[in-house]
């Protein structure tokens, strides 16, 4: 008796449940019941940044729509937090309300006449009520102006359906694509003020790590030839105002005797007491010096950058640049002449080059 009553109750409940289930089926999936799966499908976002605006959503396939005998009159991509079941639109900023067709779609029939429809929140839609062309070829449908969901690193889904009517009612083919927002990677780098400067006798390229030497030996002075020698210096800076290099020191001296500095500049003249330098690259009288090397933009200043014109005045600026610059290597040419009166002796001077960057 009790068992019979229980069976009866279960039966009644099952029947009611089954009936309700059958009744609801059309509500959720009537239009998808017979839809064929779209293959080779993907949805490409121009940005995965959360809440990004103006994002391009490009749907495409690597195969034609499976149903080729029925003209498509509307297409919809409905965005949901799940691939199936009840659709919940991704929360937050996700919006299709400003979406526009980036271009006319392909693979869905007519080559023109398609328009975007943004009436339904959370869905990207197009329609062409007059399309009578059967779909053929790979599909591309691209929208601009979409705003991404708020959540970071979160997957959401686009449920793609083609319809044989222009009211997104009678489904033809369907498929689901997954996409995701992602955290933007912020790459930070701090660049401090820089000045790289070195002097020496030899250097490889512009690498101050390779600079060596400090002695320029001009040999023995003569009244019949010019004594010469070279040194090098390299400089670079990120100072907005570039840098200036000055030379500081005395002319060649031996005790109280000295070789006259070319204080106003001038040509090298054999038989005259002269000491001077320049940074010119093509001196011929005498043949000494090398052109400035490197990708920097610095240059020798006029008084020290003219071929065959030598000068030495302590405190003079010899090279400069007014913008940030990569490294340049300068070759400094030294010349010395003596006259018949120049007293015998060992002449020398210590020259200091000072680079001052302007930040």
């Amino acid at each position, binding site marked *: 008796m009790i068992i019979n009553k229980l069976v009866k109750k279960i039966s009644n409940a099952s029947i009611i449940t089954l009936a309700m289930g059958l009744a609801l089926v059309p509500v959720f999936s009537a239009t998808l019941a017979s839809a064929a799966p779209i293959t080779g499908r993907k949805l490409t976002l121009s940005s995965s940044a959360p809440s990004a605006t103006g994002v391009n959503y490009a749907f495409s396939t690597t195969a034609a729509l499976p149903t080729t005998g029925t003209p498509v009159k509307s297409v919809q991509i409905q965005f949901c937090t799940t691939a199936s079941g009840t659709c919940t639109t991704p929360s937050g900023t996700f919006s299709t309300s400003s979406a526009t067709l980036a271009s006319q779609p392909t693979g869905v029939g007519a080559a023109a006449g398609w328009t975007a429809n943004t009436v339904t929140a959370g869905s990207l839609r197009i329609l062409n009520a007059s399309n009578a062309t059967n779909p053929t070829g790979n599909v591309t449908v691209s929208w601009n102006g979409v705003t991404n969901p708020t959540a970071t690193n979160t997957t959401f889904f686009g449920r793609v359906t083609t319809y044989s009517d222009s009211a997104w009612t009678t489904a033809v083919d369907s498929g689901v694509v997954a996409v995701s927002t992602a955290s933007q990677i912020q790459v930070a780098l701090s660049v401090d003020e820089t000045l790289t400067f070195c002097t020496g*006798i030899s250097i490889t390229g512009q690498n101050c790590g390779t600079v060596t030497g400090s*002695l320029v030996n001009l040999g023995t002075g003569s*009244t019949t030839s010019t004594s010469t020698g070279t040194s090098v210096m390299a400089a670079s800076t990120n100072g907005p105002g570039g840098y200036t290099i000055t030379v500081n020191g005395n002319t060649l001296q031996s005790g109280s005797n000295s070789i006259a500095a070319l204080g106003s500049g001038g040509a090298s003249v054999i038989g005259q007491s002269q000491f001077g330098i320049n940074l010119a690259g093509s001196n011929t009288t005498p043949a000494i010096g090398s052109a400035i090397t490197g990708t920097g933009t610095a240059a020798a200043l006029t008084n020290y950058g003219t071929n065959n014109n030598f000068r030495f005045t302590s405190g003079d600026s010899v090279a400069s640049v007014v913008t940030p610059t990569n490294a340049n290597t300068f070759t400094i040419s030294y010349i010395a002449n003596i006259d*018949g*009166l120049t007293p015998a002796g060992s*002449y020398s001077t210590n020259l200091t080059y000072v680079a001052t960057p302007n930040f």
Partner: protein
Amino acid sequence: MTKTKNTSFIKKIGLYLAAFALVLPMFGVNSVSALQITARKLTLGTSQADALTTYAFNFTVPSTTVIKSASFTVCTTASGACTIPSGFSVTTGGPATLTSQPTNLGDTSGWTVDTSTAGSLRLNKSGNVAAPSGGQTVSFSSVHNPSATNATFFARMTTYSDAAYTTAIDAGTVAASTAGQVTVTASVDETLSFTLATNTVALGTLSTSTTASGTSTMSASTNAGSGYSIVVSGTTLTSGSNTITALAAPTASSVNTKQFGINLMANTTPAVGSIVSGAGSGSVSTGYNTSNSFKFVSGDTVASASVPSNTNTYTVSHIANIDAVAAPGLYSTVLTYVATANY
């Protein structure tokens, strides 16, 4: 009960705030709101490593807040924890001083240097009331450069609204670099340049009615401190045992008289010779320095310079006269000129 909870909560907040206040200075909170100082540069008096030199800072502060102190801290890096470059010092060899009162930092006087913090050039004036304007200049003397050659270092500059270097206003960093000194050397040797351009002087055939003459030239220069002297040596014109009389004292040329002599002048009787030329300071010696007057004594100094001299060229005029009894023959002599430099 509720009052107790509230008291506990307030205590907790207080503890958090106290802890935060202790930690905050570690992150340089004083500089957090500092604006960037612009147009900044550091000019070293010399870039020589370990040199005692001047550090001249030029910059423009963006704020108009009155500055009462400023610091220029020298570090091996532009940012992060500051390590003082090896050798850099604001006291070694000094201490550092203000080269002059700063410009446009505020008041025009009353600023004092502060070298109490290693590695930091500082100045302050607690009573400053003038706001900074335009571009600022602060220059220190007797600053000891880092020891490393060709090495970049940085000066972190900060201005403060108090005299204790506590409340930052503006900040900025500049880079500077030491550099190797370039030593240029040249040696000048002792010099004596002496050249005889002619080694034969043909006087032709002597006559009782005309004076025979001819010239030779010689050039001399030296860098010797006391110049040089040129001595002539040799015999008079000789042919076997016959001679033409040498003029032992300066004498005019006289035809029909046995005479042999020289001088280093331009003459008219006879017309022979030229004056000394060249940029040197050499001159003709007495006895040989009078026009139309000739002499020849072996061993005589004919020209000299008493200081280092550029080149002079001397023209030596030789004259010869004979009388009617002069024996015929081929007369000749070899004269040697010796230049001696005097160092």
